[in-house]
């Protein structure tokens, strides 16, 4: 790092590239391995239902939190309509699954494997389209105004779902095929994290971070701010739609009630708790906030009190969230090993999330 500017920069860039690509890969392998071992050891059939259900929800929540973090934490657009996009994805994919019919030329299992990713993708695309349509007019707004507009959008989606014939109103859609296995949920969660991580650490991500830091300056630097705001919003909506599809095929039943403001707030909570701008934080917070209500089950009636109290205490003592804007990537492990082997560790400033450049 202390070499000549040019070569030092290039070297730092190369290191950065490795690090940014290695982290998601490492995370993916870690998750895969851990769960494989975990399931094997505990005996598949015993753990299944209950724990599997929680794990699937955790993976879905990871997708939701990380995608909302792209909008709220990285680009700095305060959106609280994520459940709306989720609903679009859930309804579209559920209706597609139910109306796909039986393909005669393959077995039902094979059909499910082919059909499921396709309907999820369709749900994601529908949500992305909704994001585009809502994003273009509302992204001129800033701060609180945008928050209220997105909140309104979420409500509109819910009310539309409540009143359309095709969505079957308040009765909801039942008997959706139960396609969401742990493997699918995990696969989509990992893919989401990898894609969003790479967006954040690309030139595009850097433009988004610049918008968060100072929109006018970003504009003056020649960044097309409208384009990047809409892009971030649309990508976030896409993954929310995919998560909605996964949830629909996990619960096998969806109704407008599942996608109300509370759901949006729950996702926002994960992002804020993990740290706005930290993808690692969102992943961890999604897991913690999915598991916490279950872990606290023994407290019975006091469960939600303790849950809410934990959040209040956390926000008082760590208002920037668990991770702030820091990310856990390979450099953390490197410095850990270096300190273990007694080598001198150069103190490293806290890594700020989404900065993309060489640290």
């Amino acid at each position, binding site marked *: 790092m202390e070499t000549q500017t040019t070569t030092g920069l290039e070297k730092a860039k190369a290191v950065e590239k490795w690090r940014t690509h290695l982290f998601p890969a490492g995370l993916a392998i870690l998750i895969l391995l851990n769960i494989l071992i975990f399931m094997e050891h505990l005996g598949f059939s015993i753990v299944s239902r209950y724990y599997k259900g929680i794990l699937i929800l955790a993976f879905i929540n990871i997708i939701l939190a990380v995608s909302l973090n792209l909008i709220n934490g990285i680009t700095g657009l305060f959106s609280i309509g994520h459940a709306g996009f989720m609903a679009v994805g859930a309804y579209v994919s559920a209706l597609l699954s139910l109306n796909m019919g039986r393909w005669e030329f393959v077995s039902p299992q094979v059909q499910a494997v082919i059909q499921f990713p396709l309907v999820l993708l369709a749900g994601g695309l529908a949500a992305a389209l909704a994001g585009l349509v809502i994003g273009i007019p509302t992204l001129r707004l800033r701060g609180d105004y945008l928050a209220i507009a997105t909140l309104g959008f979420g409500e509109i989606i819910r009310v539309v779902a409540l009143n359309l014939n095709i969505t079957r109103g308040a009765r909801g859609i039942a008997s959706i095929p139960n396609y969401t296995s742990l493997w699918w949920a995990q696969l989509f969660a990992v893919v989401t994290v990898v894609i969003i991580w790479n967006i954040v650490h690309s030139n595009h991500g850097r433009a988004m971070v610049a918008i968060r830091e100072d929109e006018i300056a970003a504009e003056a630097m020649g960044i097309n701010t409208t384009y990047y705001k809409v892009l971030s919003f649309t990508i976030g909506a896409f993954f929310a739609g995919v998560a909605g599809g996964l949830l629909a095929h996990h619960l096998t039943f969806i109704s407008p009630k599942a996608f109300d403001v509370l759901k949006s707030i729950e996702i926002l909570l994960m992002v804020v708790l993990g740290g706005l701008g930290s993808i690692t934080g969102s992943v961890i917070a999604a897991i913690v906030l999915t598991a916490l209500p279950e872990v606290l089950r023994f407290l019975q009636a006091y469960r939600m009190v303790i849950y809410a109290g934990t959040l209040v205490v956390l926000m008082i003592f760590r208002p920037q969230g668990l991770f702030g804007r820091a990310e856990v990537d390979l450099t953390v492990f490197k410095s850990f090993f270096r300190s273990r082997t007694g080598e001198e560790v150069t103190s490293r400033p806290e890594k700020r999330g989404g*900065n993309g450049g060489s640290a």
Partner: protein
Amino acid sequence: MLTVENLHVYYGAIHAIQGISFSVRQGEIVTLIGANGAGKSTILKTISGLLQPREGKILLEGEEISTLAPHQIVARGISQVPEGRRVFPELSVLENLELGAYQRKGKEHLKELEWVFELFPRLEERKNQPAGTLSGGEQQMLAIGRGLMAKPRLLLLDEPSMGLAPLLVKEIFAIIQEINAAGTTILLVEQNAHMALSIAQTGYVLETGEIVLSGSAAELVRNEEVRKAYLGL
């Protein structure tokens, strides 16, 4: 190089710029001086596309640019150092500079980076430090350096002396001259008329959205009204 013709800009109902015309020739330092609220920054924001004029033309080498978006204007070689610096506080100095070269491809910008570090050695010392932790003077240096990273033909400087100690102002103005000598045309907006006129070739005096005086910098410095109103002599 740049010609502004009969420019009218409004903030809602407020008529901020009332029919201004001026021009900037290649290689010059041109300064707009005037008191608070005269409309100096508004003109710069309109040139860089952050504001849209209601009437009038802005021509960059004959091409009308007043209807373009800011990113298109940057692509045509105009780069702005905004008022109040507006560095990206949580990004490092280096990342700030790299964002200045946002539109340039590959490693083209590394030459400018070296130049910026030559002009402002202090930025190189602090390249990994978050920009928000720099002093005011260093932030101004960073803002200017960031503006240069786009390799502009025309650099718009909005109040580079704001809130800086006199010694630092001198340093910054010497560097502005150096940048100009290297071939960048400069349009400088300043309240510090004395400093601005000392480095500029041409000056325009603005009062409540109108140009009341114009001429070579040397003429303006000798002008009685300017001396009384802006130089405190």
